[in-house]
């Protein structure tokens, strides 16, 4: 097992190198660089920037060097935990993204747990009461979740929370906690805000998960060993939850690898709408302002998060299903 994990991690290294090159090319794609967009911004506010000052800034940030040199500077720092310098915030990238990435992870993970908590019981129910009213009701509900764009759902959620429930919109913390260091109180405060984005992000993935659970449960319930168990007088509860569920949950765990990219994408866009202090808003701003090291680091870390998620789903599958050999 350990052997397998190590090998998979080694395999990720070439992939990561290619990804890092791609990320760097992508963030270099916009015409001009950060200094150009700064210049444009200054001109809008009617202040004049001298040519020399701009060139000096360019030199200071290393923007005058050839592209491959900039790439090597960035990636060699990346390995030792120096992700570059944010031009716009005038702070090292590492200070800016740590907490935001953690919150993005919390949001994605929370949505995943939410999806599982809801989709598994409903999937089991729908399979056991196939073509019943409840089955149809849940299916239509799931389809609705599939068709509504994430950001529209976020808008609706914002409307409901603010105008119908009288809560506050935007952010993950109440004002009194916003700039406080982390404490237990702040953690609880975050949880009380986190449920809205969790539901919104989770709703889109719910439909697929419910369907997967329902179909795989239906297939398993038709197996002969289930009939045998029933014939022997095993209680229905034990048949379903002890014998059928274990096998039926496998495609669900495989689906984790497909679920993750959707969750991360969803959490980025929902965070922008709701103004959460996660990756989304800062990533968008860094893209617009050509703050390339910040944008690049975000993109890089989101890709790493995804790769690790895929590895995790493979390991989980091996643990839950002893028939699968990891060789």
């Amino acid at each position, binding site marked *: 097992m350990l052997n397998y994990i190590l090998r998979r991690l080694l395999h990720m290294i070439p*992939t990561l190198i*290619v*990804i890092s090159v*791609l990320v760097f090319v*992508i*963030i270099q*794609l*916009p*015409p001009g660089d950060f200094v150009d967009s700064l210049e444009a911004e200054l001109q809008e506010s009617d202040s004049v920037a001298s040519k020399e000052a701009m060139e000096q800034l360019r030199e200071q940030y290393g923007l005058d060097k050839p592209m491959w040199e900039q790439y090597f500077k960035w990636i060699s720092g990346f390995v030792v935990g120096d992700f570059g310098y944010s031009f716009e915030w005038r702070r090292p990238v590492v200070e800016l993204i740590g907490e935001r990435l953690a919150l993005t992870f919390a949001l994605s993970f929370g949505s995943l747990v939410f999806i599982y908590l809801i989709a598994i019981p409903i999937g089991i129910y729908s399979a056991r009461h196939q073509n019943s009213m409840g089955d149809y009701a849940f299916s239509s509900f799931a*389809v609705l979740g*599939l*068709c*509504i*764009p*994430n*950001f*529209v759902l976020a*808008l609706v959620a*914002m*409307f409901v929370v*603010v*105008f119908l429930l009288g809560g506050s*919109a935007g952010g993950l913390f109440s004002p009194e906690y916003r700039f406080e260091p982390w404490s237990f109180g702040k953690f609880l405060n975050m949880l009380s805000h986190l449920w809205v984005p969790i539901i919104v992000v989770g709703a889109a993935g719910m439909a697929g998960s419910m369907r997967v659970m329902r*179909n795989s449960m*239906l*297939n398993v319930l038709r197996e002969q060993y289930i009939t045998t168990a029933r014939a022997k007088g095993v209680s229905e509860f034990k048949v379903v939850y002890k014998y059928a569920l274990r096998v039926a949950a496998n495609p669900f765990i495989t689906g984790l690898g497909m679920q993750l*990219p*959707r969750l*991360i*994408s*969803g959490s*980025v*866009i929902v965070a*922008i*709408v709701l103004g959460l202090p996660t*990756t989304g808003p800062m*990533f*968008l701003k860094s*893209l*617009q302002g050509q703050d390339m090291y910040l*944008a690049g680091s*975000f*993109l890089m870390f*989101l*890709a790493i*998060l*995804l*790769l690790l998620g*895929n590895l995790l789903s493979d390991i989980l599958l091996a643990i839950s299903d002893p028939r699968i050999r990891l060789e």
Partner: protein
Amino acid sequence: MSETNTNQNEDQNTSPLQPALEADADETGVSQDDQRILTAGQWRLMWRKFKRNRLAVVCGWMLLFMYTVILLSGFIAPYNPDSRFKNRAYVSPQGLHFFDDSGFHIRPFVYGLTANRDTASQRWVYSQDKTRRYPVKFFVYGQEYSFLGIKTNWHLFGLDQDGGKQQRGIFLFGTDIQGRDMFSRVLYGGRVSLTIGLFGVLLSVCFGSVLGVVAGYFGGIIDNLIQRVIEILRSFPRIPLWLALSAAIPPNMGQLQSYFMITIILSILGWTGMARSIRGQVLSLRNEEFVMSAKLMGASHSRVIFRHLMPAVSGYIIVVATIAVPGMILAESSLSFLGLGIRPPMVSWGALLTDCQSLTTLFYYQWLLLPALFIIIVVFCYNFLGDGLRDAVDPYSAAKR
């Protein structure tokens, strides 16, 4: 030479079968209808099966209707998407009336509006002025637009013109902050929203099906290489990558060019899923006898791929493509909503929703959310159309469910 050979081969494959089936049918007393099924071709069988799924057929018709509407949007929309009405910002949707004090009218009408300033909220509030009644006229002449390159000013409906002044208007979906008719904007926005998904998928299909078939057919190093590229592209989270790429579109680019740039950006990730599933199909077909016999007869690789394998997976490609369209439509609307997709003056449903980002808009002007309803309907229809097509193409799908 090889062409005639394979053709003969195909003939031999099918022709002896047909009389045999017909003879069978006569003996066993199979009805005429069943006999037709037994001898029907692949596409006919799929079509029969598809037609049985009512919901999918209805969704298909719905989509066809919507595409017709957006083709004719210049004619159906009473105004151009950019024409502003003075002092008509944030008018709520106007109802069509049939009844007034004097009873029923066969011709629908709208009431005139009077604008009042609400001092508390600093907004314009409109009230219906029942003394002014404007009947809705059909096939009227209004603002000029171009239909397939022909300039015309013929509209499906509208109000009588008021000596060139544009004060009076009919706003079925209300107006936005600049006093532009939302109904017209939704119709024009549909053009972008509905076509960008189609073009994106078309591009993905061209790219993905060729690479998928090639990967599955040749295997070995080529397959490995293509698989690695797909794997790397798929290890990017979609929305962030799309955001990063569309941020790279130069701001001074023309409307049409940026439209196609977005299409390309959407298909950069789109083709990977398609190539992957088509590769799987080809892998299972590669060792079939018809491929083997084509190869033995000396058919070239390209002939085997394009003459034998592509037609065999074409049904499957259509299904995968249909299922991919709603994802593209959602992606475009998300990008445009965030201001990184379609740029003004071009409109799309996602771009129209950009105005809804603030809480005040959500609270006072909920009708601006209407474009979302159309996104939902279209995505719904495509999903069920895709489901129906998949069941029709895959003979085992019914058993699986």
